[in-house]
């Protein structure tokens, strides 16, 4: 069964691995990503970013309905993944940085819905 609305079907395979419900899970996906993962995600999302956000903007941020959640979570994952393309040369770490696993997000395990 498709995760995303039909007009975003080209993002379906990305949603399968990136559309995770918590920031911590999305971060773990990001830390495990390779350069090609970032490139594939970025190249597919950037052209449709406005459409994706317009689609989601029909809902309230605290009240996104179940069927739209994967797209919402995909957008959140992209908001965090894009800097790896735009700034970090598709590396899964921030260059010359502290161990990202040691940063604990207070909200990290709260589900985005």
């Amino acid at each position, binding site marked *: 069964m498709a995760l995303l609305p039909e007009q975003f079907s080209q993002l379906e395979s990305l949603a399968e691995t990136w559309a995770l419900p918590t*920031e911590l899970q999305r971060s773990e996906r990001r830390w495990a990503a390779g350069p090609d993962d970032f490139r594939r995600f970025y190249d597919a999302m950037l052209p449709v*970013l406005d459409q994706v*956000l317009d689609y989601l903007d029909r809902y309230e941020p605290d009240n*996104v309905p179940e069927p739209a959640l994967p797209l919402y979570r995909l957008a*959140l994952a*992209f908001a965090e993944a*894009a800097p790896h393309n735009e700034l970090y040369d598709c590396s899964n770490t*921030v260059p010359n940085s*502290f161990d990202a696993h040691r*940063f604990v997000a207070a909200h990290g395990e709260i589900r985005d819905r």
Partner: protein
Amino acid sequence: MAAAADQIKQAMPFTTRYPELGTGPLDVRPLIDPELFELERERIFKQSWLYVARAEELAEPGDYKLRRLDVANTSVIIVRDRNGEVHAFHNICTHRGNKLIPDQEAQSLGHTATHTLTCRFHAWTFNTDGALRGIARQESFADLDKSCLGLKRIHCAEWEGFIFINLAEQPRQSLVEYLDGMADHFAGYPYHEATVRLRYSTVLNCNWKVALYAFSEAYHVPTIHKGTFPSLARLEHTEIKCFGPHSTSGIYVPPVPGLEPTPVTANLGGRLRTSDRHRPHLELLPENINPDNRQDFQFEFPVFFPNFLLHLGAGNGYPGMAYFTHQFWPVAVDKTLWEGTNHFRPPETVSERVAIAHTNALHRNAWLEDTSTMEDTYQALASGVLEEMVLMDEELMIRNTHKHWHDYMGI
């Protein structure tokens, strides 16, 4: 001699404005000495006003916050009673001393619908104003003056919605006296509207002042943050002022011709910059912050002694971010709980929510860059090889903190 003084004045315009702080190097020992760390518990952290909660975290009567304070070997309950008044108490039952509420997390929020707090050990119950309300099997205690067995109160005061505590028996100054010129300087911004708090924390293996000092200057920015914020290669760190043990300053970033934001940041940041709610609100800044109303204002950059930073950007620095805070909680001479929090106004649309996640992630990543030096710095300093460290003019806030640290410590 006059020529030398002139030369220093030219090289160090801010520093020379505060002659009592000197221009020489700082001693390293306070950052590494375990005995001084033990003294810091008593002379700094049990004497200063410490920021522990935002008023909105305790919005309703019955709301409480638990804050572990390892540096004072205690944890604190900050609670709003049924009349709306906020109190702070040691998290300790006055019967046999168990923690009233378990405190596995360094900070956590809770709510008591009954406006009472009950100890898990023998079910003693306290009102949220601290009074001992109920003792299981009270008839088996003799001579019990319940009025003396209330929760152990801690001084507590609120300024601009920031709730501070003071562990001293009798604080030397009220909170506003303590805050000195900072109280006015930062007053009036609608901090209470920024209710979306995204907090990160980690335990750094370094002294708390190594972390604090690293976050007290912008000299490092072009080097450390060239990954995440290449736009900060040239910034202006200015308007440095000291108010007693506290200090503040402004950060401006003149635009770099030809440097465009990257596409996703342009898109998402742009959405915040053009939303009425999240756009730059320079007009809301207190009047002495960004006094010339410069459009390239990034954020006001202060140090509240001893361990609180309140960076006020009003949406003009990082897209959409109202303000961000840091705290540095000593755990041991070589261990510090750092907490960094980004404060946003709540998103009204999903796209704003996504854009906030983007700004937040960039800033979190910048913190990963900041924290990358601290354990190295501490290890190197702990070697004892370096007895002193030299400071440039814009590292003045470190100089001020260090000076007042000595005053508090009486050494």
